C-alpha cells in the first residue's frame, strides 16, 4: 500500500473538466441519473451505508448512517454541503471544487436523494471567490440541463441548489454554526441535541456533509459499495485526499488509500523536510489535531491508529514542522488563530483561548516561570470537554500535546527569554544610571 491511488481525482488532468460537456463525456452525471431514475431512496441510502464511506470533514462519522437518521415525514428536508474549509492545513476541498465542480453537484444530487431533501445548499467560504464563481457557473449549467430544479433528470424529484458564500469565519465549518450562518445569523454553534438530522436548517431535518464526502458518492453509485469498501483498511474504507503542507519539499494534495504508513506520505509523497532538516513534529489532521512526533511515523494512516496515538485523522491535513521551528512561536500562532476564530459564545473557549495567548506571550517575552507552564497545561484541561462545540478543544488539545511532547523546550524558552529580558533590564538600568550621571552617550 504505497503511493497514490487516484479514484476521486482520476480525471483531474483532463483539460476543462469544470465544463459540463467534458464532465459528461467522461461519464459524469450517470450516477445521479441512475439514482434519480432507477433507484429508490432506500437503495441509494443502503449503498452509501454499505460502502462504509465515512465523513471526510473531520469527525469521520459514517455518511450513510448519518443520512439514515433523517426522519421520515412530509416536512421540508435539507442537504447542506460544508465547503467552509478553513482548518489550517486543509486545502483538499478547494482543489475538488476548482478542478471538478460538477462532481460535487452530482454528489449533492445523490446526497439529497438519500436524505429526501428538496433543497440543497453549498456553503462555501467567502475567501474561495474563484471556486464559488466556478461552482455558480456549474450550477447554472446543471439547471439548464434539467439536472437541478423541478423534476430532475425528468423524474418526480425536485431539487433546488444554492451556492451560499460565507464571509470569513472559521467556526462556520462547525456544522451547527454553518446552519446558523446559512439562516442569516451570527455563525455560532448551537446546543446539541437537537442534532441537525432532526432539527437543522430552518428547524427541518438536515444532512450536512463535507465536499469530499459528497464527491465520493457518484463513484459509489457507479461502481457499487463493494468496490469502494475494498479500498482502504477495516472501517477506514475508500481513498482519502491527504493535504500535506508545512516544511516539506513537495506540498500538495495526494489521494491515497487509508492505511498507508505516515512515513510514506511525509517522506514518500511529499518529499520530507527540506534538505538538512529533520522532522520535529506533525499535525496529522489539521491544526486542531494534537501533534505527533517522529516515533509515530510508522503508524498506518487510519482513523483508529491516529486516535490511538492520542491524535486524530480529522481532515487528513498534515502540517509538517521541521526542527528549525521553535515550539513557542508555533504554539502562539496556533492559539492566536483559535482566539481570533472563537465565536465568543461559551465561556471556556472565549476566555480560555484568550488566557492561553496571554500566557504564551508572557513566555515569549520572558515574563513567565515554569509554574506558568503548569497553569497553562491545566487551563487546557479545563477547556477540554467543557465547551459548547469543539473549537475550544481544537486549541486546547494541540497546545496540550505540545506541552506534553516539548515540555523541555518550553522550559528552556522560558529561561532563555527571562535571561534575555533580565539582560535588557540590566542594560537599560545601567544606561539610565549613566544618563543620570550625565556621562552617557545616546540613551
Amino acid at each position, binding site marked *: 500500500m504505497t503511493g497514490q491511488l487516484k479514484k476521486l481525482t482520476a480525471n483531474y488532468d483532463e483539460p476543462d473538466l469544470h465544463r459540463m460537456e467534458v464532465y459528461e463525456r467522461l461519464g459524469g452525471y450517470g450516477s445521479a441519473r441512475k439514482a434519480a431514475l432507477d433507484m429508490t431512496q432506500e437503495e441509494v441510502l443502503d449503498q452509501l451505508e454499505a460502502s462504509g464511506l465515512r465523513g471526510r470533514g473531520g469527525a469521520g462519522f459514517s455518511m450513510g448512517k448519518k443520512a439514515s437518521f433523517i426522519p421520515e415525514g412530509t416536512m421540508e428536508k435539507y442537504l447542506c454541503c460544508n465547503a467552509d474549509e478553513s482548518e489550517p492545513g486543509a486545502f483538499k476541498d478547494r482543489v475538488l471544487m476548482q478542478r471538478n465542480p460538477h462532481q460535487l453537484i452530482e454528489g449533492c444530487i445523490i446526497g439529497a436523494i438519500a436524505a429526501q431533501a428538496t433543497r440543497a445548499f453549498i456553503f462555501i467560504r467567502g475567501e474561495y471567490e474563484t471556486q464559488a464563481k466556478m461552482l455558480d457557473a456549474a450550477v447554472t449549467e446543471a439547471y439548464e440541463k434539467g439536472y437541478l430544479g423541478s423534476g430532475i433528470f425528468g423524474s418526480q424529484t425536485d431539487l433546488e441548489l444554492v451556492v451560499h458564500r460565507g464571509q470569513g*469565519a472559521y467556526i462556520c465549518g462547525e456544522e451547527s454554526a454553518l446552519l446558523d450562518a446559512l439562516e442569516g445569523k*451570527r455563525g455560532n454553534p448551537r*446546543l446539541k441535541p437537537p442534532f441537525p438530522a432532526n432539527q437543522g436548517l430552518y428547524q427541518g431535518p438536515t444532512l450536512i456533509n463535507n465536499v469530499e464526502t459528497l464527491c465520493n458518492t457518484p463513484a459509489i453509485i457507479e461502481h457499487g459499495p463493494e468496490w469502494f469498501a475494498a479500498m482502504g483498511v477495516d472501517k477506514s474504507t475508500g481513498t482519502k485526499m491527504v493535504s500535506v503542507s508545512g516544511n516539506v519539499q513537495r506540498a500538495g494534495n495526494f489521494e491515497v488509500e487509508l492505511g498507508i504508513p505516515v512515513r510514506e506520505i511525509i517522506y514518500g509523497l511529499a518529499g520530507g523536510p527540506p534538505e538538512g532538516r529533520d522532522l520535529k513534529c506533525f499535525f496529522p489532521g489539521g491544526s486542531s489535531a494534537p501533534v505527533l512526533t517522529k516515533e509515530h511515523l510508522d503508524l498506518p494512516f487510519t482513523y483508529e491508529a491516529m486516535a490511538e496515538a492520542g491524535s486524530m485523522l480529522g481532515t487528513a491535513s498534515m502540517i509538517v514542522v521541521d526542527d528549525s521551528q521553535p515550539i513557542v512561536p508555533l504554539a502562539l500562532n496556533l492559539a492566536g488563530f483559535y*482566539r*481570533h*476564530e*472563537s*465565536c*465568543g*459564545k*461559551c*465561556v*471556556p473557549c*472565549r*476566555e*480560555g*483561548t*484568550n*488566557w492561553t495567548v*496571554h*500566557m504564551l506571550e*508572557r513566555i515569549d517575552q520572558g515574563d513567565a516561570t515554569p509554574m506558568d507552564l503548569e*497553569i497553562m497545561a491545566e487551563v487546557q484541561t*479545563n*477547556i477540554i*470537554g*467543557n*465547551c*459548547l462545540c469543539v473549537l475550544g478543544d481544537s486549541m486546547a488539545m494541540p497546545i496540550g500535546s505540545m506541552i506534553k511532547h516539548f515540555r523541555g523546550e518550553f522550559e528552556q524558552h522560558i529561561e532563555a527569554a527571562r535571561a534575555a529580558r533580565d539582560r535588557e533590564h540590566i542594560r537599560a538600568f545601567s544606561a539610565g544610571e549613566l544618563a543620570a550621571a550625565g556621562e552617557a552617550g545616546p540613551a
Partner: protein
Amino acid sequence: MARPQIKEISFEIDGREVRAPEGTMLVDAAKSGDVEIPYFCYEPKLGQPVGACRMCLVEIEGMPKLQTSCSTPVKDGMVINTTSDRVKSAQNAIVEFLLINHPLDCPVCDKGGECPLQDISYGWGGGKSRFIEPKRHFRKPLELSPLVAIDRERCILCYRCVRFSQEVAEDYQLVFLERGDHTYVGTHDGRPYVGPFSGNILDLCPVGALTSTAYRFRARPWDVEEAGSLCTLCPSQCNVQLTIRDDSKVLRAFARDNPEVDDGWLCDKGRFGYQAIHSEERLRAPMVRDGSMLREAPWDHALEQAAAALTRAGAGTAALAGGATTNEEAFLLGHLMREALGSPHLDARAGGALDPQQARVLARPDLSARVSDIDHADVILVVDTELVEEAPILDLRVRKAARRNNAKVVTLTGRPSSLDPNATAAVRFAPGAAEAALSALAAELGSGRATGSRLHSRAGCEPGAIGAAAEVLRAAGDVVVLWGERISDGARGASAVDALLAVAGALGIVDRPESGLIEVPAATNARGMREAGVAPGLAPGLTDAPEAGMPAAEIAGALGAGELSALILLHEDPLATHPERRRWQTALDTAATVIAFTDFVTTALRDYATVIFPAESYAEKEGTLTHPDGRLQRVRQAIGHQGQVRPEWSVLAELAGRCGARPDVRSAPQVTQKLFATVGFLDGLTLDEIGGKGVRWQDRDAASNLPRAELPEGTLEVPPELPEGMRLGTVPSLWAGTTVEHAPSLRFLAPVQRAELAPADAHRLGVGSGDEVEVAAGGQRLRATVALRQAMQPGSVFLVSGTADNNATALTNGVPRTVEITKTAGAVNGAGPPAAAPAAPGPGAQPPPV
C-alpha cells in the same frame, strides 16, 4: 391548541429520588430535590436555552461528557450527579474563566449584594485566581440609552439582554458586535437602545454590566424593603415590586412575575414612572380657587368649599372618572353622585357610553378570555388596537404566542400595526371604519347576521384582504380576540360592537373555553369602573341604573348650555383625553364648579378648577383594580402618604357625608367589602382570596350572579359609506401624559405630534418625510411632522393623541372625520422625524438622591 397536559416522572439526583414534570429542564427539575445548580444564561422566558455560560454542567449517567443541565430535559429514570469531582472541577474552571476579565469592583458595583456572579463565585468557585495578566479596563459607565448604563468590563456575555431584545421585545436593537473575546453588547452605529421594554434588561443582567441610571447608587439591598403592588399606568396592570427606602421613597420598580398577567415583564413606563411620585411639581395639598388664583388650603376648608358647591349644584352635577381610579373610588363616586347628590350623570369613557345590554354580553364568562389564553391560542385576532401603545405587555404576549407556539396573528386595524410583521394576515381599513370591516369579516366567516353589499369597500379595505383573514380564522381552533375600545366609540359604536359579537358568534367562541374576547380599554381600570357603576346607564354590578344619565359627550354639551353646573373630575382631564377639545373648553369655562382629584395640575385644571384635591399615587393607594380580563388585583400601599395627601376613598366618603349621605365606611378594606357585597358577581370575594396574584371573578361561582344577557341575533345594521378625502385616525402614545412628563428619566420619550402618511398621499400633497404640515378640520388646526409609512392605506392620516401640544383631540369629534393637510412654509426637508426626540434634560438632570 389546548394547554398541554403535564406528566410527572421520577429521577435521581445526588442520590435522592425526585419527582418533576416530564420535559422540565434539569436545572429547574433539580430544585424539586432541593439541589441548586448554578447558571447565568438560562432563562426560560427568553426562549430556547443557549448553553453559553457552561456553568450548569452536570454529570448524567450514560453520557460520556458533562451536559448542560439548562438544556437537558429530565427523563424518567435519569441519574444525575451535581457534586462529583468532575462537575466540581468544571464549575471551578468556569468561575475562574468568568472572573479573569471581570473587575472585582463589587463595593462600587450597583449589583453588589444582589449579584448572581457574586453568589456563584462564593458558592461554586475555587476561591482563587491564577490570572496575573492585566484585566481589560475601559471607560465606564457608558450610556446605552438615557435609561440604561453599560459597563462592558463587567459583562460576562451571557446572552440574556440580547436575547430579550431579539426574542421577547423583538426590537432587535441590542446585539452582540464583533466576535470571540472581542464580543461586546451594543447597538447599531452608536444609537441608543430605546424601546418600550428596554428596562427589562436591567432585571435580566446577572452581573452589574447593565445598571439603571435612575437607580444607580441609590441603595444597597440591605438598605431597602420590597413592596409588592400593581402598576396602574395602563390597562395591562402589571404586577410590580417597589423598592422602598426609609419607608418613604420609591427607588425602583421591577416586575413581580405573574404568568396570568404580565409574564414577568414590565414596560419602561411602569419601570420608571414611579419617579413622578416624588416629583417636586406633584400636588401635595388641596387647592381652592381664590379669584383667579388657586391657593393651597387646609383640608377642612377645601372639603367645606367642595361640599358646599356640590350641595348647591345637587342633581346638576356630573362626574368623569378616568385613569387609575380604583374600584373602591369608583364605587364611592357612584355613591356620592347617585345617593348624595341625586345625579345619574357619571361616565368613565371618552368615546360614548356602552349599551348596557352589550356591556353585560361582553362581560359573559364564556365570551371572555384570560390573558394566558393568548399563549395557547391558535389564532389571535387584533382588532383596531395598537397593543404596544395601549397595553404593551399584551403586545409581548402576542409575540410570544406567535414565536413560541406558532400561533397565527391576524391584524385588523386602521393604522399599520407593529404586529404586522408577525401576522399571517394583516388587514387595513380606513380609520373609523371598524364596523364595516368587522361586518365584512363576519360575512366572510359565514355569519348569517351580516348584510349589505360591498362591505369591504365601505371599510376601505383591499379586496380579498378580509377573505384572506377569514381563511386563517376559519381553520382555527381557539381564537383570542383583542379589541380596542375605540371601535365602540361614537354614534356607530353600538353597531360596531354588534358586528364584533357577530364575528365572535361566527367563530363559535362561546363554545370554546379557551377562546374569548379581551377588550383593550383606554383607561387603566375601565372594566372595574364600569362594573362598579361608573357609567351613565349602569349601576354597580352591571345592572340597569334606576335613572339613565348622560354620557361624557352630552355632559360637555349640557355643561356648555348651562343645564349642568358642576363637574367632578376624578383623575381625568377631558382636554387631554376626550374628543372635541373645543367643546370641553366651553364646558369647563361655563361650569360653575369644577372639583378635581389629581396629582399634577394640568393647564386645564389650573384655568378651570374650583377645588383640587391631591390624588394618591399608586404607591400610596390601597384598593382593587379589575384587569380587562376580569382579574381583580390589589393595589397595596408601599410608602406613607407624601405631604398632606389623604386616601382618596376617605375624601370621597367625607364629601358624600358632607353632602348628606355618609357611607358607612371607616377603612379602605371596608369599602372593598361593601363593593363586593353590592356587586352580585363579586359576592363573597375577600381581599385574602385576591391575594398576591389576583382572582378572575369569572372563575368564581358567584359569576352566575351576572345579570343574564343573550348574544344578539338578527341582522347587523348596514355600515355607512366612507367619507371622501383624507380620513383622520388617532393613535394614543404610551408616552403621553403627566407621568412621563414628570418622571425625569422618561421625559425624553414624551411624544411630539406627527402625521403618518402613505407615500402616495405624501407625493400628492407634495410633502416628504420630516416636513412640517398643518392638519385642519372643523375650523381647528394643528401642526405635525410628516412620517412616511409604506404600509399605510392611502387616504388615511394618523395623528398621535394625548400629546402635550397639538393634541389630536382638537380635531376629533367621535365620528369618521376628514382633514385638510397643507405644507407649512419654511420647513426643511430631510430633517428626520423626531419620533423619539430626546428632550433637553437628560439623565444628568435627575433630582439629588434621597
